[in-house]
């Protein structure tokens, strides 16, 4: 994976920008999707659960 630009520079002016945009979007997804897919730390869930239980009682 890597940003690609047109070597000739004769293509439409937006082509390298569009290629970079696409590459950037994929890269950002790779970086940040990992974070969202990881299990939430149990300590954090416990903190919320304890508060919920305390509010009910």
């Amino acid at each position, binding site marked *: 994976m890597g940003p690609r630009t047109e070597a000739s520079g004769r293509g439409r002016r937006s082509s390298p920008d569009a290629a970079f945009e696409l590459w950037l*979007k994929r890269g*950002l997804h790779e*970086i*940040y999707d990992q974070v969202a897919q990881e299990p939430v730390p149990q*300590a954090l869930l416990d903190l919320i659960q304890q508060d919920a239980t305390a509010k009910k009682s």
Partner: protein
Amino acid sequence: MRDQMAPNVMDQMGATDPGTPFHTLMVEALPGLRQQAFALTRNRADADDLVQAAVTNALAAQHSFTPGTNFKAWMSRILRNRFLSDMRRRRETVEVDEAPAEAFARAASQEDSIALQELRHALAKLPADQRLALMMVTVQGLSYEEVSAQLGVAVGTLKCRVFRARKQLQAMLLGDAPAERRQVEAIRKGASPQASSRRMVESDRRIGAG
């Protein structure tokens, strides 16, 4: 910057079912909040600490949340405010902007390509607010209006942040800065690198003076 969007409009956008329990809303919001925290802090451990602190704050202030309004917006603002107050506190002893980019890159797995590692390093150099806006629009797929509602920042400001973030990343990763482009062009036409650099400096000075 909430001045450009009335609070009642922001709260209606992304409104949640008033019947959904507060704690259920919070658990559902966690994955997105963790992404936002990572975008702000550049560091997985700090991101987890930030989310925990924001959750603690939110639990303590849950009476101030109005059921049926935008819960994610409410939580995002708590998270961002907590980040900013932590930054201010830390600046008293450490210049945060000098935090090594390795802190962000440290999260890189061994499977990361070189290009992805370069992207991590470049992202680490962006201002936190630009990184956050870019992530929310590009990764979380939110519209500018939704991000505006979540962060309480004007749409125009967000568009500017995302545009600048993209352009800076492009310049860092492709060496696509205008000055560099002019230098490459000048060298291709036969000028020595030193001469073309001198001319560019003089040209930029004239533009700056004008």
